[in-house]
């Protein structure tokens, strides 16, 4: 069931975004990629996102600020957020901003897949 979940990937580096998209689509997820936070709002407004993966640094707006906004908004607060960053001290900042999981770059594919699976099981299970 989780294999059909919809995932939004936000990363300012298109190469990384494409790589994650290919990885997740190969595993059967439906994936949208954007490098801009404001584009993400459009996707979110359609209401068909089950999980968000985003880099801490985004073009246009800071990833942590976006995370805080999402978690504040009742419409989106239940969507699990996984934040990724290459910065060494990013984990604490991201978790403080409300992220459900943090993964540091470069990441392991199995690691990110198991975290996605874990979070989706938690939210989609009745």
């Amino acid at each position, binding site marked *: 069931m989780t294999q059909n979940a919809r995932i939004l990937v936000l990363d300012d580096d298109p190469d990384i975004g494409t790589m994650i998209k*290919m990885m997740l689509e190969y595993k059967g997820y439906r994936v949208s990629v954007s490098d801009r936070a404001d584009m993400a709002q459009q996707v979110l407004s359609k209401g068909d996102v089950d999980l968000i993966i985003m880099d801490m640094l985004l*073009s246009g707006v800071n990833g942590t600020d976006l995370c805080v906004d999402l978690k504040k908004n009742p419409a989106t607060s239940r969507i699990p957020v996984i934040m990724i960053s290459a910065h060494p001290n990013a984990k604490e900042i991201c978790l403080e901003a409300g992220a459900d999981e943090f993964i540091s*770059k*470069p990441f392991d594919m199995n690691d990110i897949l198991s975290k996605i699976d874990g979070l989706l099981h938690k939210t989609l299970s009745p």
Partner: protein
Amino acid sequence: MNNFFRRLSLPVKLLLLILFPLILVTYLSFELYNEKSNKVDLLAGYIDRIAEAQDISDLINALQLERRHSFAFALKKDIDSRSQLEAQRPVTDLAIKNLEERKDSTLKDFKEYTFLENLQNARQAIDSGASGDVSMQYYTTSIFRLNTLNIILPVGANKYLRPVYADLVTQKILSEMATYLGIIRANFYNVLLTKKNMAGTLYGLAGVNEIYKSYETEFLSKASPTSIAKFKAMRNTAPLKPTMDYINNVFQKFSFDSLYDAEQWWKTSADATDQLKNFQQDLMRQVRSTITTAYRDEVFSRNLTLALLIVALLFVFAIMLYTTAVITQMLGKLNEAAQKISFGSTNVEVRKVSDDVIGSLAESISSIATTNKQLTDAAEAIGKGNFNVFFVPRNEHDVLGNAIIRMKDNLKRFTREIEKSKEQFRQVADNAPVMIWMTDENKQCNFVNKGWLKFTGRTNEQELGYGWVEGMHPDDYSRCAEVFEDAFNSRDQYSVEYRFRRADGTYRWLSETGAPRYSTEGKFEGYIGTCVDIHEMKIHEQRRDNFIKMASHELKTPITSIKGYVQLLLNIYKDYNENKSQFSTQAIQASLTTIDKQIIKLNRLMSELLDLSRIDSDRLELHMQNFELNNLVNETVQDIQQTTKHEIIVKDGTICKVYGDRDRIGQVILNLLSNAVKYSPNTNSIKVNIYQPASNCVAVSVHDQGIGIDQEHHHKIFERFYRVEGKSEQTYPGFGIGLFIASEIIQRHNGTINVKSKKNEGSIFTFTLPVPS
């Protein structure tokens, strides 16, 4: 005793000094007064005695008269005699009473030894008809006896009585003479009246007559010339002359004649006797008058002496007191002046008022004050730095004067040395290429050097005290204050960095180092420190830190990408091996293409880092050759055109040949084109122009319509690690060292690189290279 006297205060000493003579003078005055008083007392005693003698004399006279009248009554028994007798008796009684009333011990019970106790018996016998002899005998013995009491001449040479001595002696002789004359005349009267016993009477009276004559001789030898003259005059006139002539005649012939009858004789001789008596009384009065006058004079003299003595004593005492006061006052003034001098005052005025030891002392004190004033003035002038003040020591013994001269010379030398030292310090401080400051022991700034003032653009007065704090960045103040306080209180050296306002109003990072400073005696005198402008270094450091962070991030991005694709490929391969899924050629190709692209990107980043390292260590090697710039530009454009949607238009009307490292110049062109693409995401056109702006150089410019760069960043973007940052800025991948490397490469070709740009209006990057000769 000597010590005791020395310890006494000066007024007491002076009073003691006058006390002894004063006591002596008082004692002598008292003695003198006593002497005078004794003389007065003596005279008073004599006056008393003379008065008494006069009373006795009065009584004798009364008794002589009573004897005369008793004798006449006994002979004649007539009424006249009786009445004369009756009249005389109360006179006699009164004289007795007067003598009795004198309260004088020498006359106590005088009646017992002068037969006067028997007066009443004698009178009764006379009244009863007793003979004339009886009365004559009784009264005569009594008169003789009384005459012996009339003695007031205990000392013949008593000087107080000398003026009256002759009269005193002669009045007694006269009294005796009157008595004896009375006896003679009474017996003569008896013979003349009775005509009986003539011879017997003469025999009996011859001795009496001789006694009378001897008294007369004595009188003439003792009496005063005046008395002698008076007596002789009296002797040569009546009644004394006829009486004495008759008596002499009778005793010469030794018989009575009829020259006088009884009554004639009685009368004449009575007058003669009275004449003697009166003379005696006159002398007595004269004596009394003289002695009373002498007494009065003496009393006056004594009182005058007393008054003069008192006045003299008071005068002496007053003089002594005044002298004591004056001496004390003079010494007091000198003491006051000396005290003033001892307290260090030079404003002392002492006048020499007397020509003695005190005056001399005043002169000495005045001289000390004057000298002190001169020394003070000299020291004052020297203290103010006037080393040319005229001052000469009085002589080689003038210790203070010589010391001041030495002090002046030393101070002059020290001052010169200090001035020199200060000048050296000032030169060092002012010329030092750092900011130097000093504080006092209370943390207050008391010195800043020229470098400081040049930096802040403020005046020395503005910076001293706590004024300099105004220049510190408000955000840094409390941190720095804490560091400084801690170090200051424990006298430690410290270093601190903070932002400080420069003359142009911008805040610059300063590195301050402070250390406690001590005098040569080891006394803490405050802090000294330096401030160095480390702004550029600080900014550089920050950029380097940011660069390292950014570089690690940038390196991680392709690695993340490569790792992700490799894992995806491993998954596909695994699934394929296990026949779980179909082999996706498309996914494999996309993955491998991306991996290749990421490796190229990684390689480029590594090359940039390597170039940076080479530039830093000055090992960037150039492989110089002649080549045509137009070809290089077109090749590079063709390469990059494949990777971007932007249309890159090259305008190369001029063929430009250069001499340089073709690869490195290509690197520069690629960098400029990459930046143009990267920073103009919303436009599609980039223009490249190859041209020759001057005969000696060629230029390549890259013109985009991108986000542009603020004027303030223009000169900095060619510095290492510099990246335009800001809230509104988007982040762009890359190290941000591309322009730095490009700039370094162009500079090594003796070319120039610059930018023309405005925010949001695109940029024109242009580099020039020299034309080869």
